[in-house]
């Protein structure tokens, strides 16, 4: 190790590090660091500090900043250091500035000049240091200043420089794609670089370029495939091997690129099949890196034009991942499954139990990944179970970011697949109740729209039922404390609009409730505004219906309060209410027609009804209106500003290249025009109407792609046939289902079938799968599996109940069968009637799911038997594969040896290391001795410090 492990710093610095290490509390540490900052502030500004000392100060600054304190007073010194002639000092300077400064820092302008100079240096190490800084510090404005030089460096004789130059250009591309758009040919050329490192680096910018525009790079498919082939065949230098895999990081990058290029392109994909197949075969699945490549292969296979053979290999790998004991691999398996089910949905079936295990795993990360998978495989048959699970989980977590995400997913699924409107409203209520402030306000508007419009034009009674059920549930929910604002807005609106429609609740009752809301949430002006408008509606409906309304005392006091409110909006609403109450029935009905929220309002954007007034004013001598863009005064100001700006920038460094034209300005235009249309003047109290206005057209066209829209067609169908309605209500209906099952058994089960079932049952106890889990599996995977699974298992078990389906499909491969089988879900009704209940009940033996589980079980058991092991290990070879590989194993020795942490002193630790590598104790002893020589005795409280990271 020589001097490399030595410590060059002064005793002072070592003492600082040591005292920080020994600090017993955060407060103590802060005190030490603040002291250090004071010292540095004083010393660093002294004149004539020797370079060596200065270098150390800068490193101490880095240390201080690393501990989370502000070292900005020293930034300028770090910048100065980059100007130094000596590479050593310069390198420290560059390191410090790259750590201190973000790309938008003011000091960067002072470094650009130095960087320019250094990029021209003869010493390649100087160039490398400068390029490191370039890729961190150069921002969009300064790219032109260094770009020509960086491009020149692409031809530098040293491969390290070429590589860094490529990476710098990649960074430029990320910051401003237009700045390097003319350099694409250079990237292509570097792909053929002799040095694999440079070639590997070139894949980074190419990946980004291809992501943006796939079609211009289709010609490179052959090159990428041949490079990948060479890598797989070990034709790259041995130095790039990693854990016996040939250049795995390059392989992964190439697979990523191929996935992009082959997506939806049959021709290009065909060129990749061989090499990807090779990787599947050759990849060593016992090492972590091998699995990383396999995972990338799956991603690639699921992205390119499907190939049955590759999909099969991918499915094999996935099942290995899911069966592994390593959580990492399970996680990757769930992720990969999510990718593959898009192409071959039937593979989810085989893994249902594994997936449910992951869902119930204590590991949060794995759980979330599994929810993501469920989200991807949701359909109308399992939406209820999945969304219920999601909401339960949503309630249980505190992480706002994830809560928002999962809430919006619940909303999305509910909108897409809701089996009934009642369920939809209940689900939305739950989501709003627990994550109301996190969901998009549009969702609330959507919910209001749904309640107002109902789900079909033909069925008015259903609509009114829906409304009254919504009103009822909201009145119920209002009792709960602390509801989110968005939810309250919905509630107020619905109560105002439909609270009294069905006559179940009296106006005074609803009014009372609304007043309670306004009082309980008196800080929330939006809710209050909604409540007042709702009050107004109730009152007007009553007046219009010819009933006499007396102001309730609480309403009266609320009004009085609002009439004097600081918010002009609230005040206005209150005055309007007051005015409206005084009117007669006919006038009121014109102002507030009942249930008119769905009617279109035409907004006269040109305000043409004011024309007469304008004409009159102009005749009286008023100035005509000048559009903002044509106002001359404004123009002058902006002109002036730009001049000013120009002047300011001329003080700084000037490079001609700054003047380069920027071609992409177009993208900025659309938002501006959008904003202007939003400025349509619509009276504020018409919030909801406004939102309908925009959505109504898309409803009528029905095929509108708007995301938030309900897909009502699917829902309708579900409602039409109640027999389909899925399986959540298991508990109360099990008895009747059993009898149905009994009939099926008598009717259809062949002897062979029952025999196989028996064998499964006898084996079942060995594996122990709880009935709830099976039930869950059935309800999650149920919808699709009914028919598909029969196809999958059809080869092995003869299923009498589905023979008619089977016959037609037997000759085909199971894949094709599955893809064709999705439609037959709506096949003969009686078949489904028999099939459906079995899905839900857990006991009866005809359950097709259990048969599937049995299948899974038997394979597991069989493999265990084959290897002569007991039930302890699921499948021994996989265990061996996924337990930590020997190479990684020693890394964990620290974790595996808890006894070490109890050792009192740093020196004793080493003696107690039973499994360390040969030279380690000696090395550590040397290090310890060295540290002691320096006069530092590192914290004895933490012997871990001496423990080798790798062993």
């Amino acid at each position, binding site marked *: 190790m020589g001097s490399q492990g030595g410590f060059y710093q002064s005793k002072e610095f070592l003492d600082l*590090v040591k005292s920080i290490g020994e600090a017993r509390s955060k407060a103590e540490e802060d005190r030490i660091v603040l002291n250090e900052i004071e010292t540095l502030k004083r010393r660093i500004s002294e004149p004539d500090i020797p370079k060596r000392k200065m270098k150390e100060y800068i490193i101490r600054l880095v240390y201080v900043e690393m*501990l989370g304190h502000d070292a900005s007073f020293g930034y300028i010194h770090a910048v100065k250091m980059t100007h130094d002639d000596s590479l050593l000092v310069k390198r420290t300077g560059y390191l410090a500035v790259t750590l201190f400064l973000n790309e938008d820092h003011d000091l960067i302008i002072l470094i650009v000049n130095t960087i320019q100079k250094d990029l021209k240096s003869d010493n390649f190490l100087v160039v490398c240091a400068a390029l490191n800084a370039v890729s961190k510090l150069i921002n969009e404005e300064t790219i032109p200043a260094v770009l020509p030089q960086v491009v020149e460096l692409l031809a530098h004789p040293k491969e390290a420089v070429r*590589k860094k130059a490529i990476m710098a250009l990649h960074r430029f591309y990320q910051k401003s794609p237009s700045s390097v758009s003319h350099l694409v040919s250079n990237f292509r050329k570097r792909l053929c670089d002799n040095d694999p490192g440079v070639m590997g680096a070139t894949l980074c910018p190419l990946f980004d370029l291809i992501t943006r525009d796939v079609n211009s790079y289709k010609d490179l498919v052959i090159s990428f495939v041949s490079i990948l082939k060479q890598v797989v065949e070990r034709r790259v230098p041995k*130095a790039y091997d990693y854990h016996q895999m040939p250049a795995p990081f390059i392989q992964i990058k190439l697979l990523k690129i191929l996935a992009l290029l082959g997506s939806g392109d049959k021709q290009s994909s065909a060129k990749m099949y061989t090499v990807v197949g090779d990787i599947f075969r050759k990849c060593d699945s016992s090492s972590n890196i091998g699995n990383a490549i396999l995972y990338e292969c799956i991603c690639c296979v699921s992205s390119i034009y499907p190939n049955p053979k590759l999909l099969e290999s991918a499915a094999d790998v996935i099942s290995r991942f899911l069966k592994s004991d390593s959580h990492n691999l399970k996680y990757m398996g769930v992720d990969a499954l999510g990718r593959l089910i898009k192409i071959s949905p039937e593979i989810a079936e085989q893994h249902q139990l594994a997936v449910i295990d992951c869902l119930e795993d204590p590991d949060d990360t794995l759980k979330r990944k599994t929810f993501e998978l469920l989200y991807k495989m949701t359909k109308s048959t399992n939406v209820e179970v999945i969304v219920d699970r999601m909401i339960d989980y949503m309630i249980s977590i505190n992480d706002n970011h994830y809560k928002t995400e999962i809430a919006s997913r619940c909303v999305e699924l509910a909108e897409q697949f809701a089996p009934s409107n009642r369920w939809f409203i209940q689900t939305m209520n739950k989501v709003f109740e627990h994550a109301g402030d996190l969901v998009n306000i549009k969702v609330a508007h959507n919910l209001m729209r749904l309640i107002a419009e109902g789900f079909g034009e033909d069925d008015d009674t259903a609509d009114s039922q829906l409304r009254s059920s919504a009103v009822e549930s909201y009145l119920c929910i209002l009792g709960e404390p602390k509801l989110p604002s968005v939810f309250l807005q919905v509630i107020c609106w619905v109560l105002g609009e439909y609270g009294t429609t069905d006559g179940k609740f009296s106006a005074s009752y609803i009014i009372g409730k609304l007043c309670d809301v306004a009082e309980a949430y008196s800080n929330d002006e939006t809710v209050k505004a909604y409540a007042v408008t709702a009050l107004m509606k109730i009152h007007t409906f009553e007046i219009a219906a010819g009933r006499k309304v007396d102001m309730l005392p609480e309403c009266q006091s609320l009004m009085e309060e609002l009439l004097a409110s600081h918010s002009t909006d609230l005040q206005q609403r209150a005055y309007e209410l007051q005015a409206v109450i005084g009117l007669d029935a006919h006038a009121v009905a014109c102002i507030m027609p009942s249930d008119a929220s769905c009617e279109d309002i035409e907004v006269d954007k040109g305000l043409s009804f004011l024309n007469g007034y304008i004409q009159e004013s102009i005749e009286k001598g008023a100035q005509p209106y000048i559009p903002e863009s044509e106002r001359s005064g404004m123009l002058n100001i902006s002109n002036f500003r730009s001049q000013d700006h120009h002047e300011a920038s001329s003080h700084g460094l000037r490079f001609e290249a700054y003047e380069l034209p920027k071609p992409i300005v177009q993208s900025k235009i659309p938002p501006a025009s959008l904003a202007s249309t939003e400025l349509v003047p619509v009276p504020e109290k018409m919030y909801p109407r406004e939102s309908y206005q925009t959505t109504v057209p898309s409803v009528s066209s029905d095929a509108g792609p708007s995301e938030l829209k309900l897909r009502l067609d699917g829902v309708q169908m579900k409602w039409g046939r109640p027999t389909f309605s899925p399986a959540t209500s298991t508990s109360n209906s099990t008895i009747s289902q059993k009898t149905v099952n009994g009939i099926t058994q008598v009717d259809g089960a062949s002897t062979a079938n029952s025999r196989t079932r028996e064998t499964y049952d006898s084996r079942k106890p060995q594996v122990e799968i709880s009935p709830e889990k099976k039930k869950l599996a059935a309800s999650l995977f149920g919808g699709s599996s009914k028919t598909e699974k029969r196809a999958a298992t059809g080869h092995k078990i003869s299923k009498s109940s589905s023979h008619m389906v089977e016959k037609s499909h037997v000759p085909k491969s199971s894949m094709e069968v599955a893809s064709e089988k999705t439609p037959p879900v709506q096949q003969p009704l009686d078949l489904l009637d028999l099939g459906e209940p079995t899905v839900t009940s857990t006991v009866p033996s005809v359950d097709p799911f259990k048969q599937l589980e049995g299948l899974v079980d038997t394979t597991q058991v069989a493999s265990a038997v084959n290897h002569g092991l007991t039930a302890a290990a699921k499948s021994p070879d996989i265990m061996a594969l996924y337990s930590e590989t020997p190479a990684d194993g020693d890394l964990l020795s620290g974790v595996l040896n808890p006894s070490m942490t109890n050792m009192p002193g740093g020196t004793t630790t080493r003696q107690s290391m039973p499994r360390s590598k040969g*030279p380690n104790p000696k090395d550590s002893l040397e290090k310890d001795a060295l540290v002691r020589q320096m006069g530092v005795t590192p914290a004895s409280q933490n012997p871990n410090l001496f423990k080798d990271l790798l062993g």
Partner: protein
Amino acid sequence: MIHFVLLISRQGKVRLIKWYSPYSQKERTKVIRELSGVILTRGPKLCNFVEWRGFKVVYKRYASLYFCMCIDQDDNELEILEIIHHYVEILDRYFGSVCELDLIFNFHKAYYILDEILIAGELQESSKKTVALLIAAQDSLVETAKEQAGSISNIIAQATK
């Protein structure tokens, strides 16, 4: 891409941090606090990935030190685990069975080495040999500089005798 690399001890002390995406000083402190809270409390058998603010953080524990990298949603976690391991192996080769103490006192060297492996949040070199050669080339400068300094101080020492 990798947004930042964080080395943090079992006790929550930062041993090295490098940002590849812009974060303000305030955000940086918050990120470190938040992540150390999440990662240090995770059990040993759970997976080495954490979903966090729409990103993923891949971490691995070596002795008492946690190596963490924050990546995008669509990156390959297993690959990142191996990049971490790649870095640790190079550190190990450089320091000669590296331990946390090496990194505490030589954190700037750990930065230099990291700069040869990652650049702008991407892996730039996957050959350990190349990295070792580059670092050695840089260190040889340090050696000569030290010798010079040494010889000057020798001369002064002799002169003042």
